[in-house]
């Protein structure tokens, strides 16, 4: 049997869809981990990235630091957190936030730093203050890249929240199915869990495409496409 028939059979049995360990609950948990991690990461990384881009200092350090940062194995960090913090919500939140920070920060930085000089000069010529330039010119023009960073981070986190289940003890999410299935040699459960994560990751990707249409001003949309 192939992966798909395993996944299909498992997903078709009614018992998976009900109860406290049912698929809807697990999907909800998965989205909760993803959403919270993304929110915290955005609150940390967006202001830093925007300010570095605005003042034009520290960009080189930020980009290189992000490179080192990316080398951190999320699974290792997660397990370290289990050892250090036990089974608190911070145990899964910290590694996911760490994972989400670099793409958000670097894109916000690149977006703001690459705003056309002439545009800023024109804004200044119109009498805008430094803050107004940041709020009314730089951030809107940087939005395509900022959204791209958020989308990339969201995809990382939704995919990686899978391994949060390694923690055990009440930490669910869709990774639970994959790890439980691997532990009990139930390949149907593994395949079903994996299929659900893939579908969820793709839905998140599409959701961000829609979100970008809402947030990014129409004339700027094509710019981002060239970058992504």
């Amino acid at each position: 049997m192939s992966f798909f028939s395993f996944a299909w059979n498992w997903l078709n049995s009614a018992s998976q869809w009900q109860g406290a360990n049912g698929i809807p609950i697990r999907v909800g948990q998965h989205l909760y981990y993803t959403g919270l991690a993304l929110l915290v990461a955005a609150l940390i990384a967006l202001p830093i990235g925007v300010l570095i881009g605005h003042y034009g200092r520290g960009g080189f350090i930020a980009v290189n630091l992000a490179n080192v940062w990316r080398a951190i194995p999320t699974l290792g960090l997660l397990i370290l957190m289990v050892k250090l913090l036990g089974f608190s919500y911070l145990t899964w939140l910290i590694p996911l936030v760490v994972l989400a920070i670099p793409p958000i920060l670097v894109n916000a930085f690149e977006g703001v730093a690459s705003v056309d000089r002439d545009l800023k000069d024109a804004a200044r010529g119109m009498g805008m203050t430094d803050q107004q330039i940041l709020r009314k010119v730089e951030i809107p023009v940087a939005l395509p890249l900022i959204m791209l960073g958020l989308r990339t981070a969201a995809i990382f986190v939704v995919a990686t929240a899978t391994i949060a289940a390694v923690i055990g003890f009440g930490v669910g999410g869709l990774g639970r199915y994959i790890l439980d299935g691997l532990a009990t040699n139930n390949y149907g459960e593994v395949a079903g869990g994996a299929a659900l994560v893939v579908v969820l990751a793709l839905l998140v990707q599409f959701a961000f495409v829609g979100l970008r249409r809402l947030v990014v001003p129409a004339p700027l949309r094509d710019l981002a496409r060239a970058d992504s």
Partner: protein
Amino acid sequence: MNWPQFWQYTAANALLGIVPAVVGLAISVPLGIACVRWRWLYGPVLSATSVIYAIPSLALFVVLIPSTGLGNLTVIIPLTLFSLCVLVPNVVDGLRSVPEPVRQAATAMGFGTVRRLVRVELPLAVPIVIAGLRVAVVSSISLASVSTLIGVASLGYFFIDGLQRDFSEEIYAAIVAVIVLALGCDLILVLARRLLTPWSRKQGGRATINAEGGQLLQEQAI
């Protein structure tokens, strides 16, 4: 701490990280050239790679288990596919970054399409391609540690083992080893770029930062 085992798994982790990046490069260069040549190809290729890229590596390992078993190949194939998502756009951007006057000058000097590609366009694309390769190799070394969850040996083994045996040093050592391994490969690639593009040293760093910074957008999740 079982050091012989530690070094053995470090080597395994290096293999699982480096092979996908190298194979990914071998696929991306011809694919990227094709995408530049036939513009209509780039859209579908980009969509396909970014869909693959949204798939968690653990899920993709699992998809392959029925066909490739619990071996290295089950890890190498997904990581190779992920690397394409970083490398193909970089090859394309690199080739497109060659200024039109340079291309015309090469043609005027009598270079044919193939010779112009090999002697002019590809060398000029090297900085951007290497920027992508750096991201690919660092991510796949870091991601390869997840392979322990399906029982394929890598440094990730020591994460789980350290947890089960309540032995934190083992976890720290394995995390540091993954980072050192990744940054070691990164450093080699930076040196390779300097060797391959002696002309770029004289220019300011900004363009390089841009190329690399842009590529940080493209990472792969677990």
